[in-house]
């Protein structure tokens, strides 16, 4: 007798669960789609989003702390010091390596590097993934001698 009862209850449950599932999908049919129309409408990133870095060159003191803090060695800095004057000749970040961990921004004493909202910097070449943040400068012979390029 139990076998017969299980059979009929199985048939009933099969139909019932299908109906429950269909009611759920019907509800979704009339709910608002969550699709982001990405290339047409850019999504707003959250305030603490860790995107491509923002570098404020005039604040930078060329102390290499960020490059030292980087766990994957993706920051390369070139500095020319002449007395009190500091010239940042190079501030490259290799985004093939960067893992957006935010560890470079924390130790900076001058608060000159931050994680930004930007995320669209894909490139077709390996070179293209190395972003140069420092404004390009022409150096004199003397300056070239004192230029110190450091990775770590």
């Amino acid at each position, binding site marked *: 007798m139990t076998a017969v009862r299980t059979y009929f209850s199985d*048939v009933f449950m*099969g139909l019932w669960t*299908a109906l429950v*599932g*269909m009611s*759920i*999908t*019907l509800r*979704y*049919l009339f*709910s*608002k*789609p*969550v*699709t982001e*129309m990405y290339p047409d409408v850019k999504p707003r990133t959250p305030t603490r989003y860790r995107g491509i870095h923002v570098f404020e060159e005039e604040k930078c003191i060329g102390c290499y702390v960020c490059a030292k803090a980087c766990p994957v060695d993706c920051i390369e800095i070139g500095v020319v010091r002449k007395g009190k004057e500091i010239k940042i000749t190079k501030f490259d970040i290799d985004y093939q390596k960067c893992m957006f961990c935010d560890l470079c921004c924390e130790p900076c004493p001058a608060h000159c590097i931050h994680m930004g909202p930007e995320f669209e910097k894909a490139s077709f070449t390996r070179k293209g993934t190395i972003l140069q943040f420092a404004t390009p400068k022409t150096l004199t012979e003397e300056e070239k001698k004192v230029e110190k390029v450091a990775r770590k």
Partner: protein
Amino acid sequence: MSELAAVLPGVLEKAGWSVPGGLVPVLAMFICASIVAAAMGLSAAVLVWAERKLAGHFQCRLGPVYVGGKFGWLQSIADGIKLLLKEDIIPADADRPLFRLAPYLVVLGVFLAFIAFPVSEKLMVADLNIGIFFILAVLTLEVFGVILAGWASNNKWALLGAMRAAAQMVSYEIPMGLAILPVVVEAQSLSLKSIVAAQSGGMLRWYVFQPPFFMGVSFLIFFLAGLASLKRAPFDLPEAESELTAGFHTEYSGMRFSFFFMAEYAGMILVSGLAAALYLGGWHGILPGQSGAMWFLLKTAFLVFVMIWLRWTLPRLRIDQVVYVGWKVLTPFVLACVLGQALMAYK
């Protein structure tokens, strides 16, 4: 068709074309065939778009939006052009003639079935006196086409898919055929025209709502068995992507693939339309006195919507579950319905 053949000579005379009298029925036949073929292709295109759009919204997505304006209505035409332009590949070790024959057989089965498709009192190609039986018979051609496609591809996934498809379609033909019997017993005819005509006079005269609901249950069984014989979800395991790539049409591309595609979507319309005609009063409206092709198309569209809805709700069944449901659930239930309806008719 007979009406068309009756009207045709007058129309031809007005147009100024002289056609010998013997050729008029042939011409009418050709016109009907091309109308059916055009309707099949067009409805497949519309349904592909509708299915994608609905699938999107069922999953909180948008579906196609880019091609042809806001609703992506040109999407299926773009798809059609893509399929036409695609290279038609025949595998080196395939059985070439059979490989070429299979898609035509599949389409032919569905195409022939549309001969007895009752859109409205006037809008049907031919009112055969074996109507519904004829449709069931020619639909079996599709099974043969599928199994031929799977075998001729010389590909293990195709063969597995074809074996599953054949086993499933053959076993679901039985509940499908038996589910029609209560209706035939009540209408005392196999002709679809008289079956629909027997349901006139408002919604309560439709066969689904006839107490004691033997025909309501058999409507459900007919619909489920129809889903299974169309190989649609949740019975789509002959083409289960996760295990068989694409089932029996793995090796097909381009136009030949689109033939299978067209047959599936035309089959959806066919099964929905048959269910509407057999159980939901065909071209009769909700209130007594209302009738017209619009009502039939509305009911068919609703049933097609339910098919799409089911597809995006339920997961795929296992092959043993499919066979279990066919032989151990649907068949006994439908036999009980036939017996009950026969006892009702005996009085």
